[in-house]
């Protein structure tokens, strides 16, 4: 195979920079693997590692600092047949830490080459996530205050199964890169090198020292799949699980079959508490309205923590287009729990003699002008989670907004068996 190096754009690193050796090694790897440029995507980060994509005739994607793995993920999911390689420095490692951890956990078939030269070369030699505390860098004393991370240890504990630390000077680097690329999952190659432009101006670091660093290091033990039961590669697993997902049903469609009972805009508020199926009842009421050709809107309010606090549904049913969706003067209030009543107590002041309030016998309502109907749901042996639906039956029994046939139709549209029959049984028993 021919070299994939871009003849028009030879590597442009500082003299002696390890990055240049890695470029050559990566090219040799591609040749060894018989890869064409159109089979490879190089996703490069920011800093000197961010130049990598320009030196090769491959697909290339150069984006923002620390985010290379995010683009690589999108590209690999869209084009799983591509060999996707992300290049990132120790700077990108720090700023993109969350993405690195997630990539380790995800195990998508991407190879991450960390071009680790222990400092920010491009911006002048500031400390990075891998700078030793005793190094002299352009960040003054600040690096003394922080511990460097061992990215191999971090990647491993985040779930990466292929993690290896290499020297940018080792002669078999191309073989190591090939193994990492061939690994069917996320692989991390931490390649230690020397920043001749910045780091070694004030710190002593030689290829020999790097070799010692690498060979002494426990990361050596990571140069193969650790687990006896390797994790599934993300894309294949995604496809496998996707296949079992049932296609989503189309939304329920309703053709109007009834005439509206009152051809005016009606504003209904259901005031309850969490667990009372207030929102479902709200939906049922709206669906019932739709069966009579009414327009409907529903807004819900509940606490962010579930299973506690008020639960409120605000519903509008109208023969006209519903514009403003706020409810300031409700025509109907269904009061089923004190939490909901408390949250909307100001509404009771706006009631008139035409307002209908249906409330559970034990739920106290503020004094107001409305006609209030007390219903002993509890005494009738109905569980609190059914009070909302039961109150719709009471409303239907009064032929207000909906009638029983509309309500039954809505239940049939919304619920499957056995809930459907149970619900219909419930509303039929509520008729008084």
């Amino acid at each position, binding site marked *: 195979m021919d070299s994939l190096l871009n003849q028009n754009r030879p590597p442009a690193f500082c003299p002696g920079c390890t990055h240049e050796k890695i470029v050559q090694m990566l090219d040799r790897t591609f040749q060894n693997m018989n890869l064409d440029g159109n089979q490879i995507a190089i996703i490069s980060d920011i800093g000197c590692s961010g130049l990598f994509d320009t030196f090769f005739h491959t697909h290339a994607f150069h984006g923002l600092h620390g985010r290379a793995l995010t683009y690589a993920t*999108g590209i690999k999911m869209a084009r799983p047949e591509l060999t996707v390689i992300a290049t990132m420095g120790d700077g990108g490692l720090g700023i993109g830490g969350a993405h690195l951890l997630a990539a380790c956990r995800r195990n998508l078939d991407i190879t991450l080459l960390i071009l680790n030269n222990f400092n920010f070369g491009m911006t002048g030699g500031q400390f990075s996530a891998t700078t030793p505390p005793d190094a002299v860098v352009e960040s003054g004393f600040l690096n003394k205050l922080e511990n460097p991370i061992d990215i191999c240890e971090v990647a491993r504990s985040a779930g990466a199964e292929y993690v290896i630390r290499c020297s940018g000077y080792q002669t078999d680097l191309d073989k190591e890169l090939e193994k990492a690329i061939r690994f069917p999952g996320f692989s991390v190659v931490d390649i230690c090198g020397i920043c001749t432009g910045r780091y070694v101006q004030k710190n002593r670091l030689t290829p020999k020292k790097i070799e010692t660093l690498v060979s002494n290091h426990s990361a050596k033990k990571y140069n193969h799949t650790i687990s006896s039961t390797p994790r599934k590669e993300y894309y294949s697993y995604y496809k496998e699980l996707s296949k079992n997902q049932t296609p989503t049903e189309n939304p329920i469609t309703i053709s109007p079959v009834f005439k509206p009972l009152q051809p005016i805009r009606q504003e209904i508020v259901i005031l309850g508490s969490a667990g009372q199926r207030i929102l479902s009842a709200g939906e049922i009421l709206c669906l019932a309205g739709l069966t009579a050709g009414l327009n409907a809107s529903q807004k819900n309010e509940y606490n962010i923590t579930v299973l506690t606090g008020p639960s409120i549904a605000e519903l509008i049913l109208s023969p006209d287009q519903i514009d403003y969706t706020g409810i300031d003067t409700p025509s109907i209030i269904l009061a089923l729990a004190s939490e909901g009543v408390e949250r909307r107590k100001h509404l009771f002041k706006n009631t008139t003699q035409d307002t209908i309030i249906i409330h559970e016998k034990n739920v106290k309502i503020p004094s107001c002008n409305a006609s209030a109907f007390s219903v002993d749901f509890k005494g009738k042996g109905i569980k609190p989670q059914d009070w909302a639906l039961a109150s719709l039956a009471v409303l239907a029994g009064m032929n207000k907004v909906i009638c029983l046939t509309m309500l039954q139709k809505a239940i049939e549209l919304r619920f499957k068996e056995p809930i459907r029959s149970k619900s219909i049984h419930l509303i039929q028993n509520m008729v008084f």
Partner: protein
Amino acid sequence: MTVSFMEGNEAIARAAVIAGCNFFAGYPITPATTIFNTMLKLLPPSGGICLQGEDEIASIGFCLGASMAGMKTMTATSGPGISLYSEQISFAIGSEIPIVIVDVQRLGPSTGSATLGADGDIQFLRWGNSGGLPVIVLSPTDITDCFILTIHAFNLAEKFRCPVFIASNKEIGMTRESIDIRNLPLPEIESRKAAPHTTGFQPFAVQSDTGVPDFLPIGSIIPIRQTSSTHGPDGYITNDPKAIEMNRTRLAGKLKNISTNHFFYETHPEKDATTLLITYGVTARSARQANREEKQSGRPFSLLILKTLWPVPQDLIQKHARGMKRVVVVEMNLGQYVREVERVLPGIPVQFLGQMNGCLITPTQIKEFLSHG
């Protein structure tokens, strides 16, 4: 007539799939989460990809990668997420990556109120990118708009190779409404223009007078380049001031080629009206009601509802304001779009009604404001 009953967010997700969206990535955030939930139900069974990123930056990053690999992508979030998207939005603008970004706005600043509505991001969407280049922002008023504008958003993103925002609002996204999907006037689906697979292909060379480069995806038979760096037509970094200027001028100018039929709006002109009310988003609904009621009371005003906010439909605003004694701008913030209206209507008194307390501006508030003006 057959109607369904769903949230604005669900309508956006369903319309996205109709528009050809086959890649969605998002990070859960109220009030946008149900877009993610719906996409997760729709895409995987039909062969599409739906991902939950480790954060918002990753989610939009996934989309940018996938978009450059040829997929139609969408992400959805709210104000705090838009803040995190910012660097990637700048990238998508400068490097011409099609993407639809839904902002289901909630009351800010910052984390603000997760479950209260607002239209507080309107200037942020326009200017929240480094470099200040233009974007497209569409603003739905109701569920039907959510459906139709989402398809337009994809078409525009594809046609102009740029991010297109849908500036929704908790009050639309999480409100369920009846919608007659089968009888909606849906636009034709458009896709980015493909370049021929020739070896001389340059990823940012413009072949036509549209100002938009033809597209080949990463993964094509010839290697394709994408970069966030200042680049020439070949996709390599450039320092040449001439090349830089040409590219920047083109980026700033290409959205000027949006034809008038790509501006979305609704008008309720009234004969003898001396006031024009301009509004958008959920507030438009209160304005419609006020418009009807004032007409019945013999105090008609004209109403212009903008559904394209950016680029500013300058000619449209000027045309409708012609001959008016005053223009009133109503929006669910402390005064954002009113700045644009003032800018394009020199010499016409522009008044402002807004509020930022999580409550809808009511038809009564609008009528009272108009009567005191």
